[in-house]
C-alpha cells in the first residue's frame, strides 16, 4: 500500500514536469487561455471539501489533504486524472471530467494559495 503511494507520487511528479514543459511551450506566459475567476474556482473547490475537508484540510484519513500543496503538483494530478493517466485512480477521474482544464488549473491555484493548517479567523468587526 505504502509502496503504491510512493509510486503514484513519483509518477505524478514526473507528469508534473512533463506538463510544465508542455505548457511552457504552448503558452509562455503560463496564463490560462480562458480566464476562470477566483469565485468560480472557490465554488468548485467547495465541492472538493466533501472528501478533502473544509478548505481542503484533513487530518490523516487516507484521503490526502490538499490545502497548500504546490500548484504544479495539484494541477498535474488533476489533469492526469482527467486524461486517465493517473495510475490506480478510483473516483477522481469521473469527477474531474465534469470540469474544463482551465477550471482545474484554477482550482489547483486556489488550493495552493491556502495555508495547510487553519489559522484563527481574524476578528474584524
Amino acid at each position, binding site marked *: 500500500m505504502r509502496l503504491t503511494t510512493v509510486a503514484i507520487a513519483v509518477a505524478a511528479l514526473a507528469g508534473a514536469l512533463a506538463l510544465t514543459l508542455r505548457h511552457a511551450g504552448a503558452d509562455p506566459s503560463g496564463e490560462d487561455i480562458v480566464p476562470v475567476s477566483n469565485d468560480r474556482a472557490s465554488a468548485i473547490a467547495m465541492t472538493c471539501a466533501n472528501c478533502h475537508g473544509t478548505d481542503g484540510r484533513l487530518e490523516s484519513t487516507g484521503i490526502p489533504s490538499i490545502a497548500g500543496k504546490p500548484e504544479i503538483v495539484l494541477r498535474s494530478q488533476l489533469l492526469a486524472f482527467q486524461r486517465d493517466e493517473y495510475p490506480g485512480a*478510483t473516483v477522481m477521474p469521473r469527477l474531474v471530467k465534469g*470540469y474544463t482544464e482551465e477550471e482545474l488549473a484554477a482550482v489547483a491555484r486556489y488550493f495552493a494559495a491556502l495555508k495547510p493548517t487553519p489559522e484563527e479567523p481574524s476578528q474584524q468587526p
Partner: protein
Amino acid sequence: MKKFSLSRREALKRMGAVGVGAFLAAGGLPVYGNRSHGGQRVAVIGGGFGGATAAKYLKRLSPGLDVVLVEPQKRYYTCPFTNLYLGGMREFETLGHDYRELSRLGVRIVSQTAVDVDAEGRRLRLADGDSLSWDRLILSPGIDFRWGELEGYGREAADKAPHAWKPGPQSRLLRRQLLEMPDGGTFVLVAPDNPFRCPPGPYERVSMVAHYFKTHKPRSKVLLLDAKDNFSKQGLFLEGWKENYGDMIEWVGRSNDGRVVRVNADKLEVETEFGEIHRANVLNVVPPQKAGFIADRAGVTDESGWVPVQPRTFESKQVPGIYVIGDATQAAPMPKSGFVANTQAKVTARAILADLAGEEPPEPTWTNTCYSVIAPDWGITVAGVYEVHDGELREVPGSGGVSPMGAAADFRKREAAYAEAWYAAIAQDTWGSR
C-alpha cells in the same frame, strides 16, 4: 433582488457593499461584503447534511449575516454508515454529531421543531409557541414516510418491522433483532419504488446484513423484495454479492413478483403483487417517502409530495424567498444523498448571498459520490457532476459513472478504505466533527 426596493439597492451600491466576492479573505474564500448582510437573517430548518452545511457556509461566506439553525435534536445521527453499524463494522455512537462547532462559528442554534411557516409574513413558528422572523429561509427537513400507503405498514408496524431509514432508535432495534435472530433464519428487506432516500441504500444494507450473517450466522438467508426492476450500481452489487456471499443474497425484482403490496408486522409476513407470502425472522421495510412535513406547511410541495425548485438556486418554484435543499427536493438526476445535500447547500448559500446583495446567482456546480460498502474490503462508488443546461439540471456529459466491473481486489479494497475516509471528511465539512 425582487425584495429590495430600488432606493435600498441604490443605497447599498453607494456604500460599495454590493458585488459578489468583493473581498477576499486571507484564505482565498470570497467574503460577500459583510456590511450588506449585517442585520439580515437567514433561518435554516433542519441540521442534517443539507441544513448544517448551509448554516456553516453562510456564516463562513458572510460573517456579518445572522444565521439561525432550527433543529430539535441536540445530537444528529447519520444514515450514512448505519448499514456498517448493522453489519457490526461500526459503533453506533460514531455516527453521532452535535452542533458545538457550528455554534462556535457564530451560527445560532435553536433546539426546536419548526411547526409552521408564514411565507408572506416571513416568520416561522416553533413548537414552544415562539416565532422567528427571517429574510430568507432554507428548508432541509429530509424525508417523512407515507405511513399506511403500503398496506399494513403504519407507525406502529415499525416497532416490529423496523424501517431504520431514519437513524436512531430504529437502527438500534434492527441491530438487536439481527443479534437475536437464530442461525438459519431469513432477513427480508422490502425496497420501495423511486424516488426515495439513498438509491443504493437498500443494496448496501443487505450486503452488510450478509456480512454479519457470514461471520456469525452462516446458515441464514437474505431476501430482497424490490418494487423496481433496476437499481443503483446493480451490476457491481450483483458481482460483489456473488464474490463475497455466494448465493446468500437473493434479489427479486418487480417483474419476478418482487413488489410487496401488504405487510403483516405481527406475523412478520409480506405479500407480493401476485399473492406470494414471504415469512421473515427479521423484517425490514423501507416505506414510500415524501418531503419532511414542514415543506407542506410552507406550501412548497406539489402533488408528488416533493419540492420543485429553480435549478440555479434551489429557491422554491412556488414560494419566493424559501429555498429547499436535500432529500426533500425534486433534483433528478441528482440522487437523494447526503453528499448531494451538502453540495446543494453550498450552491444555495451563495445564491442567497447574491440575492441579498442584489446580484445574479453565480453559476452553480454540484457533485456526488456515493460509496457503498459490500464487505470490509469491498467498496464501490457512483459519482456525478451536475450543471444547469437550458434551464434544466443535468449530469455534465462525459463525467461521472460507476466503479469498473471486474476490478482488481486492491481497487475494491481502496474504495472501501476511501468510504471510511469520506465519512470522516464529510462529517468534518458538515458539522465540524467526525
